[in-house]
């Protein structure tokens, strides 16, 4: 079937689908020209007799992640209801402005679509739109219930810090590579590579079969970092972000989460090549900078929302926190236990260990300790460099040194 075929019967419909595709793209869905053509074909196949079918046909093409459903749903209902979209949408949105906090997310989505549509409007409606844009603004100035601070990274610059950062950026994290089920040709491999052998044999006419070998490939397991950014950790977590950025760009399958009173996945931002861009994005995204810590709550969020998605292939987890918990360790035991059982190794990095006389006294620390496989300091460059040794050394899952801490905590 060709792309033109549906146009014969569709009249202006293909054009409208194209506009709809553009609205979705402006609203943030990855919609390319190919997708639009596919949508036109899909609609032609399903027919336009039934609104539900029409909806799901477009849905099957334009949506390819679960979290895009809301956006698509709102865009669909707004776009395909009325040609004079903007006015109708205003009337849809205005009642929501007076609604509950639960609706805030829906408002945010509607706002994104509103902006996408507004960019698409005809010029004769520009004035009208300008008048009503004030309304949109009011939808966006939602007051946050928590007192959350925006942070400026630039205030921490001294020469030593700069030097340390540079060193940190050069650090590699050679986690012990695990064998995979794949092979690659290798002269010193332990297994015969029959395919290569036979091909080589034919090259000589089949008189002799020179044995070729292959070797098991190894691969780094995924690395998950859960980093505490509460007030007590402030100095370290900022420095560590540089380290995490270096690790993220060094290898694949690194996922980074920051937590204070809530959990934020910052993996995407750390992938920006430029560290300043990455840090600026994170500062925008993370709202609980330098607040309190609710470790149990955040680990619970991680366990229920993320663990199955990021821990599935034998991940190593770095938990960076001082273990000082605002909730006094409530729920922490169960959640750490669950986390520990879902990963290959759980390594706790604690800056408080820099004090020689450190004793695991606080409730948070005592709740965490029984479930971690290793317990290490993380307060200077040296301890970070030491970390690379720990992670790359083969050995028992639980480091022998842990028994000392467990006794102290008992």
């Amino acid at each position, binding site marked *: *079937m060709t792309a033109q075929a549906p146009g014969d019967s569709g009249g202006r419909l293909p054009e409208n689908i194209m506009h709809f595709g553009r609205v979705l793209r402006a609203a943030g869905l*990855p919609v390319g020209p*190919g*997708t639009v053509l*596919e949508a036109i*074909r*899909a609609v032609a*196949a*399903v*027919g336009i007799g*039934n609104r*539900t*079918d029409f*909806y*799901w*046909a477009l*849905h*099957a*093409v334009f*949506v*390819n*992640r*679960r979290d895009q*459903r809301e956006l698509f749903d709102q865009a669909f209902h707004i776009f395909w209801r009325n040609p004079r979209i903007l006015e109708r949408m205003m009337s849809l949105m205005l009642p929501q402005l007076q609604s509950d906090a639960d609706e805030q997310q829906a408002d945010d989505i509607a706002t994104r679509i509103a902006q996408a549509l507004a960019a698409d409007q005809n010029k004769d409606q520009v004035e009208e739109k300008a008048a009503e844009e004030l309304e949109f603004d009011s939808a966006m100035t939602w007051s946050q219930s928590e007192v959350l601070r925006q942070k400026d990274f630039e205030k921490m610059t001294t020469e030593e810090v700069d030097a340390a950062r540079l060193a940190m950026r050069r650090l590699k994290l050679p986690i012990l590579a695990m064998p*995979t*089920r*794949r*092979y690659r040709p290798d002269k010193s491999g332990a297994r015969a590579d*029959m*395919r290569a052998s*036979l*091909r080589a*044999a*034919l090259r000589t*006419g*089949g*008189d002799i*079969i020179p044995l070729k070998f292959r070797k098991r490939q190894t691969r780094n397991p995924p690395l998950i970092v859960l980093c505490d950014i509460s007030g007590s950790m402030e100095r370290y977590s900022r420095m560590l972000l540089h380290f995490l950025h270096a690790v993220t760009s060094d290898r694949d399958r690194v996922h980074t989460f920051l937590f204070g009173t809530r959990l934020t996945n910052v993996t995407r931002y750390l992938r920006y090549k430029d560290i300043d861009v990455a840090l600026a994005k994170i500062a925008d995204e993370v709202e609980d900078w330098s607040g309190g810590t609710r470790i149990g709550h955040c680990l619970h969020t991680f*366990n*229920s929302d993320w663990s*199955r*998605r*990021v821990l*599935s*292939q034998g991940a190593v987890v770095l938990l960076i926190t001082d273990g000082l918990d605002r909730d006094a360790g409530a729920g922490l035991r*169960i959640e750490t236990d*669950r986390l520990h059982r879902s990963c290959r190794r759980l390594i706790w990095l604690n800056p408080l260990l820099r004090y020689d006389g450190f004793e695991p006294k606080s409730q948070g620390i005592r709740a965490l300790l029984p479930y971690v496989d290793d317990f290490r300091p993380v307060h200077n460059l040296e301890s970070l460099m030491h970390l690379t040794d720990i992670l790359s050394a083969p050995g028992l899952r639980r480091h022998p040194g842990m028994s000392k801490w467990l006794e102290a905590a008992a």
Partner: protein
Amino acid sequence: MTKPIPDSVDAALALLSSGAYVADRSLATALFLSLKLGRPLFLEGEAGVGKTEIARVLSQTLDRDLIRLQCYEGLDVSSAVYEWNYAQQMVEIRMSEALGDQDRDTLERGIFSDRFLIRRPLLQALEPSANGPPVLLIDELDRTDEPFEAFLLEVLADFQITIPEIGTITAKEPPLVVITSNRTREIHDAIKRRCFYYWVDYPDAARELEILAVKAPDVPAALSAQVVAFIQKLRQEDLFKLPGVAETIDWAHALTQLDCMALDPDTINNTLGTLLKYQDDIAKIRGSEASRLLSEVQTELAIAGAA
């Protein structure tokens, strides 16, 4: 004679229900599009909501072969696509040597020919079959790794596979491809872009009752209603793994085996293991929480019955 594929959404819906699969119209739409336009159907959803079942029903109702590729980490070409039969190849070389009648080119063509090719699921799916193009089920794609995903791109886009020694094998008629994922990681957009996407959700109460009526017809209606209402309540709870439709059906069967006519707290506590698969979850629900949910269910059903 191959059965024709459905020619409308209604026909697709009828096809699914003829295979004892209770589906939403939305799923039928995605399925119809995938059959009609010859693109894979990408099904994502929690475990136990009936993703794999769709492929099975499709192969049954359309009378096609079902070829299943179970994905796992490190899945490679030799176990997913093809492998050479090395032992036989070596015998062949030895034979031709003994006869001494073949030159090198002939031998090479002979060795790397169809005869010595062991076909794995993906290659099988591209071959013509008496029953028409088969249903290819690529199950739990999220378990494999990115390199294999990248390999799948060629297969899914053009339904062709390149074997260096032979050349490119193209399917005369593309297979009906169903891909499932539990979303333990995100599948790359490049794959999804070539498919029709559908998120298989937990069914609502009415739909779940229908499913139970089809899948477990010997369960008394009153018990079914209670089971479904209880599970719908359970899915509102903060659990690590919510029970899927598969668990609902298992539980209903289990209760029937126990000659249970109506839910009571003891029975629930004793059979909770068929519903919840994590000890934490069981500990959370067992006892007072189960009783509370049950009394809520009983009240709601009583009100509905009175109305």
